[in-house]
């Protein structure tokens, strides 16, 4: 969308994720949005945003108990659920239909996402976490 993107390697260490995100936020006050690419990165990034006191739109990938809590508290705007149920379940169903139904196939590709989780559906998703979500 034409906006400047700065990608930082925050490592896999929860303490370093927090301090490096805080460093980047402090170094460039014009940053107005963060996209964290994992649930533990998301939780550490939320702590960094809080410590710096920045007004930042924080969005994440994947679900965890901590991320759901942050969404409900309003610290994280939304997270993107991979929807593994669709990724893993549908292919098997389609393969079965293809084999047993003389090449029966849906007429077009079926997207498995993106599945957004935000404050509106967080509670419902949490109830199904580990089962259907």
């Amino acid at each position, binding site marked *: 969308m034409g906006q400047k993107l700065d990608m930082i390697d925050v490592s*896999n260490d929860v303490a370093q994720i927090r301090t490096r995100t805080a460093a980047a936020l402090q170094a460039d006050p014009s940053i107005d949005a963060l996209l964290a690419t994992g*649930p533990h990165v998301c939780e550490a990034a939320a702590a960094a945003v809080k410590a710096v006191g920045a007004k930042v739109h924080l969005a994440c990938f994947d679900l965890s108990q901590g991320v759901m809590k942050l969404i409900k508290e309003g610290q994280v705007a939304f997270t993107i659920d991979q929807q593994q149920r669709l990724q893993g379940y549908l292919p098997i169903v389609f393969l079965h239909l293809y084999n047993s139904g003389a090449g029966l196939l849906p007429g077009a590709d079926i997207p498995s996402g993106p599945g957004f989780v935000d404050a509106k559906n967080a509670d419902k998703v949490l109830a199904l976490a580990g089962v259907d979500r």
Partner: protein
Amino acid sequence: MAAQRTVSVARREADRLQTGGRLAALSRRPEVGAFVVMVVVVTAIAIASNGQAFNALGLKNNLSIIAQFGIIAIGATLLMIAREYDLSIGSMIGFAGMSMAMMLKWGLPFGLGPATPVSAFFLTLAMTLAIGWLIGTIVVRSGLSSFIVTLSFLFFLRGLTEVCFRAINGSTQISGLPDFKETSTFAYLFGGETFGWFYDLWFLLGGNVNRAGAQWVTGFDARLAWWIAVALLAWLVLSRTQVGNWIYATGDNREAARANGVPVDKVRIGLFMVSALCATIFAACQVFETNTADAAKGNLKELEAIAIAVVGGTLMTGGYGSILGVVLGAVTFGLVANAVFFIPAIDGSYYRVFVGVVLLAAVFLNERVRKRITGGL
């Protein structure tokens, strides 16, 4: 005349060997290489980040990373002085973190009821110390290189961590535990804050103000206090006790030390347990700060710990090294690993390039220093 007489009184027999002035004596200390590299790195980062790296939050965050590097580096250094390596530090951190978080989430093993931070920590510590003892015993009894034995534990412990996560927890991370540092003093000791007076004073003096005009940072992360405590203890033991002499002797000439009655094997086993202790403290600080754990925790930390020991002037061949040097090395390494992200003009991925450069520069500098001290050995 009078001045000359006092000088001659202060001289001792040993001073006969001393040549040159105070500066020359300073330049022979093992920490001098680490100190020079640290000054260069601190100055460069302060200038390049417009001082941001050392404002209230920057200082706290940098010291947080420096401290957690420093804790494991001291364990690695003590082992290196005794001419052993521990490549299992990173996996030990992962194992300890998994163990503590798992107990806090699912209760104590064998149905002993729910865990408190105290019982989770000490039960985990008992396990990691036992593993450290096992590693040490295997190394001592088999005569195999500790490099190989601990390498196998690097894989073994990481695999065990993942297996436990999958078998018990069903997922490779634990998140959303209750905030134990709010309710338990013991958890606060690891995951809370320390030296709050420093930031209170800073605020009173007019600094440390956040974007809303109130006090910004309230204290350093608790691991800073742990780092200082571990470093002080290690320094005391190394330079003031018989055990310290044993450690140096074990790394220098093992057979001569054994012949002189140094319990070489016990020293080595004990140091592997110290290394496990350092890894457990590292893990406890992270678990109780973030209330999370994941299977990748501590990945590659063993190599970073050894790199810091080397930057701090410890020799790979044993028998030589200093705690002060490693403290300075941790400052250098932690800053390079964290403060690069204060400089928007530089892509953060360059930090590993800098780490490599700093490591090599420090080793060259330390080699020169060591040759001067030992007379070219």
